[in-house]
């Protein structure tokens, strides 16, 4: 009898659940987040689904950034594409060029009659995903920018003042010398070497990474990161690597493990690494602005973002796009954004979320978390610091990784390596231009 009642209750629940699912329109969202970020993302989805009855967002993890983009593309070719696809900033040019496969966010919002004000977003974040005539193509989701993490205990241990000025690379160089002299085994390490030490370095010193405003003004762009500023920086890093002051750990964020374990004194990494460092570091740490080279005209300019945005794919019903619009509006609402920013270290993508975070006293309670935002918005972006819009950029980054490894191992000088990277990358840009003519 008891068994019977459980079964019938279960059956009733299933019937009720299925009717409610049938009534609501399903919105598919493919993303690249696991772990803590995946949990926070799932929480947003649950919150949205509970807040209304018309739409159900179904979030599916499709692997890392590259794999997610690839899954979206394969699905589009098979006619099975999701409504929303998370695409990392590197894939932006690929998506923008895919007219016919995407449905721009401004269009989705306009057709759904949703309230949408692009000016609510932080300028540099918005600029990355907006056409030159001001129309937003994808919705910024997670954006971060590189900062300098300092292991204060390592500084004290080496007899250095942990509060010493580390605002310029000259001063960092002096600190590295002192750390090395004190016998420290890992004075400096980095994550995402191309992003931090070439892409952001270029923007931060207001020199071009590529011609045509880093690709914003046309597909006929050419790489230009073999200029004197970049060569000087990479050569300095190469010299530090030779002397054991800069320890290379890998192409992605492998260096993070070394820093979080307390082995390294300085670490250049995304502001979104904050949550991980805070959770794992058993030493006093501090976030500082990314250093710049003193004496370079216009430095420090502003840094640029990394991260991902949400692209709406074409080929779905108007009713479903209405749901997409509602969800995107929910995601960019102030409370959701402020919470995301505070939990992850990603930038608050709207001005309102930044203001709310400040008003809540978060920055005072967590010193250093405001630095990323200040570093990005300190000066209005120039043509060199709006961002990058380059085709085949994932492959170009791989080329840059290879050439930088040649500098770290002492096989090539910075000039030779960067010249070679530019030349090899340009060949890929020409192919991309041809494919999207």
């Amino acid at each position, binding site marked *: 009898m008891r068994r019977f009642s459980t079964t019938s209750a279960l059956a009733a629940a299933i019937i009720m659940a299925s009717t409610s699912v049938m009534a609501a329109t399903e919105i598919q969202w493919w993303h690249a987040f696991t772990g803590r970020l995946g949990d926070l993302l799932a929480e947003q989805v649950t919150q949205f689904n509970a807040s209304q009855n018309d739409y159900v967002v179904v979030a599916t993890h499709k692997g890392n950034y590259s794999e997610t983009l690839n899954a979206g*593309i394969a699905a589009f070719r098979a006619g099975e594409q999701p409504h929303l696809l998370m695409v990392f900033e590197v894939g932006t040019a690929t998506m923008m060029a895919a007219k016919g*496969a995407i449905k721009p966010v401004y269009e989705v919002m306009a057709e759904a009659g949703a309230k949408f004000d692009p000016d609510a977003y932080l300028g540099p974040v918005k600029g990355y995903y907006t056409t030159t005539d001001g129309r937003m193509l994808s919705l910024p989701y997670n954006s971060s920018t590189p900062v300098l993490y300092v292991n204060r205990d390592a500084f004290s241990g080496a007899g250095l003042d942990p509060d010493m000025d580390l605002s310029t690379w000259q001063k960092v160089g002096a600190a590295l010398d002192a750390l090395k002299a004190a016998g420290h085994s890992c004075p400096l390490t980095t994550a995402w070497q191309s992003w931090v030490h070439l892409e952001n370095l270029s923007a931060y010193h207001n020199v071009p990474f590529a011609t045509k405003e880093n690709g914003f003004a046309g597909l006929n762009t050419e790489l230009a990161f073999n200029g004197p500023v970049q060569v000087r920086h990479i050569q300095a890093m190469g010299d530090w690597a030779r002397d054991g002051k800069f320890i290379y*750990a890998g192409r992605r964020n492998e260096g993070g493990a070394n820093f979080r374990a307390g082995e390294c004194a300085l670490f250049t990494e995304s502001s979104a690494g904050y949550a991980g460092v805070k959770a794992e570091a058993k030493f006093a740490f501090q976030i500082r602005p990314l250093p710049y080279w003193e004496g370079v005209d216009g430095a420090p300019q502003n840094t640029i973002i990394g991260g991902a945005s949400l692209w709406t794919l074409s080929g779905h019903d108007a009713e479903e796009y209405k749901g997409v619009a509602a969800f995107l509006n929910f995601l960019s609402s102030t409370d959701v954004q402020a919470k995301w920013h505070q939990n992850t270290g990603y930038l608050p993508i709207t001005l309102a979320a930044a203001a709310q975070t400040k008003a809540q006293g978060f920055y005072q309670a967590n010193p250093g978390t405001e630095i990323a935002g200040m570093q990005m918005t300190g000066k209005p972006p120039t043509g060199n610091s709006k961002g990058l819009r380059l085709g085949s950029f994932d*492959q170009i980054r791989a080329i840059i990784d290879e050439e930088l*490894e040649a500098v770290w191992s002492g096989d090539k000088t910075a000039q030779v390596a960067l010249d070679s990277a530019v030349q090899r990358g340009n060949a890929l840009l020409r192919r991309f231009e041809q*494919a999207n003519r």
Partner: protein
Amino acid sequence: MEKRVTFKGWLLPLLLVAPQLAVTAVFFFYPAGQAVWQSLFIPDPFGLRSQFVGLGNFEFLLGDSYYRASFVTTAVFSSLVTLVSMGAALCLAVLADRLIKGASTYRTLLIWPYAVAPAVAGVLWLFMFNTRVGVISWYLGLLGYDWNHVLNEGEAMGLVVVASAWGRVSYNFLFFLAGLQSIPRSVIEAAAIDGARFWTRFRTIVFPLLSPTTFFLLVVNIVYAFFETFGVIHTITSGGPQQATTILVYKVFADGFVGQDLGSSAAQSVILLIVVGTLTIIQFKYIERKVHY
């Protein structure tokens, strides 16, 4: 000495090979044909438009000195993987063949690594040799050796070779053991009575009689090293440092599935197909002559 079975008429023989032909056509000729066709175009990733470029993709590839260098990397990698996996398997098989007690236990244990997927094998080896937390790199550090496959090209190559060969040892071991056990004991015993020691017996009797197995494994292992190792490379080195471990098939994967450059990826597949086809023909034409069946 060749035996030939003669059929009357065409119908029955055709019917008998038809299933195999159908499988080959559907799973090999069709996709291979598609690859050849795609290699003549530069498509955009979403398949919205594509441009006919003739042999442009091939020109682009062969004009790239880094792509040409990848042939040498592949040759070194494939030879090493084949040599290591077959050599280790042969040693183990010879030893296991002489076992009297517990032979089946040893055999079962030796077969296990074959069940591990290449990508997982890659991660396992990466953990052991991780420059920071790896067990083996830590012991090497105690011995005063600074293991750093992240920047040292030779070490990176060594690591991907060992990781790729490891799972393959089991497979080769099975075949070698079966081959060894099919060699008639009487032949070996006769040689032993004539005073031939183990090494002489192995060199003059066992190894030649094992040659059909060795030849089969040589072909299969080279094909494995060429085509199925990108999982290991992807997890351990991603083709680095610099281009030290970028083998041809990894570049096909990276350009096609990460870079979305499907035209170049298709052209690379075609080149790879030609290379492996040629290699196999050479093996059958020249090496098979030395095989005693």
